[in-house]
């Protein structure tokens, strides 16, 4: 079990950021290595994402379920990904905290089971790479929000959903 966490601060209000976090089109553009995201239902996404370390970069078919979506505070997703000789199972959550100064702090955490070649690279490598990828994601997403690119909240929690890595 790998655990990652971090935070990201933005001076944009969380109501505003929320729309971007829950718009699959925005996610498709900002998610690192993301080729496509399809919304199967308001709580189910499928995606193809190529991520890895160095030249070890498998393309994963990802199924994601929104397990919690409490606007504008908490978003949680469960995802599993399969690629040739690699697989992951992941729960990721983001808490959007309102700051006194008016901005937002995004506290994020993820727990993952990783197997295959990627796992063999070791936790430290995955840790530093994941942090960079997540930070890139937040920065790209924030920039879209800052530039006022339209976004629409389209995701909601699956009924009776429970994240499996809790």
């Amino acid at each position, binding site marked *: 079990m790998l655990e990652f966490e971090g935070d990201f601060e933005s001076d944009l209000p969380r109501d505003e950021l929320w729309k971007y976090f829950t718009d699959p089109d925005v996610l498709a553009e900002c998610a690192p290595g993301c080729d496509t995201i399809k919304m199967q239902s308001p709580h189910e996404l499928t995606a193809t994402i190529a991520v890895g*370390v*160095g*030249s*070890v970069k*498998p393309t994963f078919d990802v199924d994601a379920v929104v397990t919690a979506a409490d606007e504008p505070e908490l978003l949680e997703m469960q995802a599993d990904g399969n690629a040739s*000789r690699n697989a992951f199972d992941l729960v990721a959550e983001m808490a959007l905290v309102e700051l006194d100064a008016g901005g937002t702090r995004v506290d994020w955490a993820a727990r993952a089971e990783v197997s295959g070649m990627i796992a*063999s690279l070791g936790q*430290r490598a995955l840790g*530093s*790479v994941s942090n960079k990828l997540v930070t890139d994601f937040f920065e790209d997403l924030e920039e879209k929000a800052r530039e006022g690119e339209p976004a629409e909240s389209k995701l909601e929690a699956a009924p009776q959903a429970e994240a499996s890595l809790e």
Partner: protein
Amino acid sequence: MKPAPFEYHRPTSVSEVASLLTEHHDAELMAGNQSLGIVMANRLATPDHIIDLNRVEDLDYVNVGEDEIEIGAMTTHRTLERSAELAERVRMLPEAAEQIAGPSVRNRGTLGGSIGEADPAGNYPAALLALDATLTLRSADDSRTVPVDDYFIAYMFTDLREDEIIESAAIPTEPFPPERTGMAFLELKPAAQTWPTVSAGTAVRVDDPDADDPVIEEARVALANAADVPLRVPDAEEALEGEPLTEETLDAAAAAATEAADPEAEMHADEEFKVEVAGEYAKRSLETSYRRATDT
């Protein structure tokens, strides 16, 4: 094992490489093939396209100019190791080159390959960081320069985009007049042909090599394999600048290197050992650099 099937491309110009990369997003660039082939043979990477850079002759050059030294990405370790001009101007770099593995690897392996792979144990990443180098990265319709400091992001993870190729590295020469500069690259490794445990690349410029106790005007200290990226140690540099090299300043610099090191344990060296070696090798490398700076 054998690698998974792939399509092989052998372009002869940088622009051809760039357009191939635009066409095939998942392509891997192959430089000297001293690492990628092994990874692929173990099926740790299974790219559908390989772009072999060995016929791209316009990436193989060393230009020693007045203000900077520019080195093409496909310049081999052997060429760097044997360059008398580089030994005169930036000794750290040929010294880093000559310690890479054995002759057969050095005949094929390249500067760009090492930077592209971005293994934190690699010699050039640390040396180029110490030398404040800038990389030129090129895609089909863009060319940009990135300071080495910004380029290495995480373990084997860089700022290089999918459609980009490393074209060259440029090292500013201005801070290092040969007559009062000393440099060294020192690595510890369990066996000659393996990756080093920890390495230190250092440079020192003194005010007057003929003085009794020449004062260090500028110092550079970088470590390889002491963190998940090549590691510059500004605190070590500050501890030295403005002072002659004394036991005290040297110890302070070594302590700073120890403090900065955040290595991952590996088979032959646990974390504690690597931290200790980081301090010790920073110290030894600085002593050598200072001696070279003041010997002239």
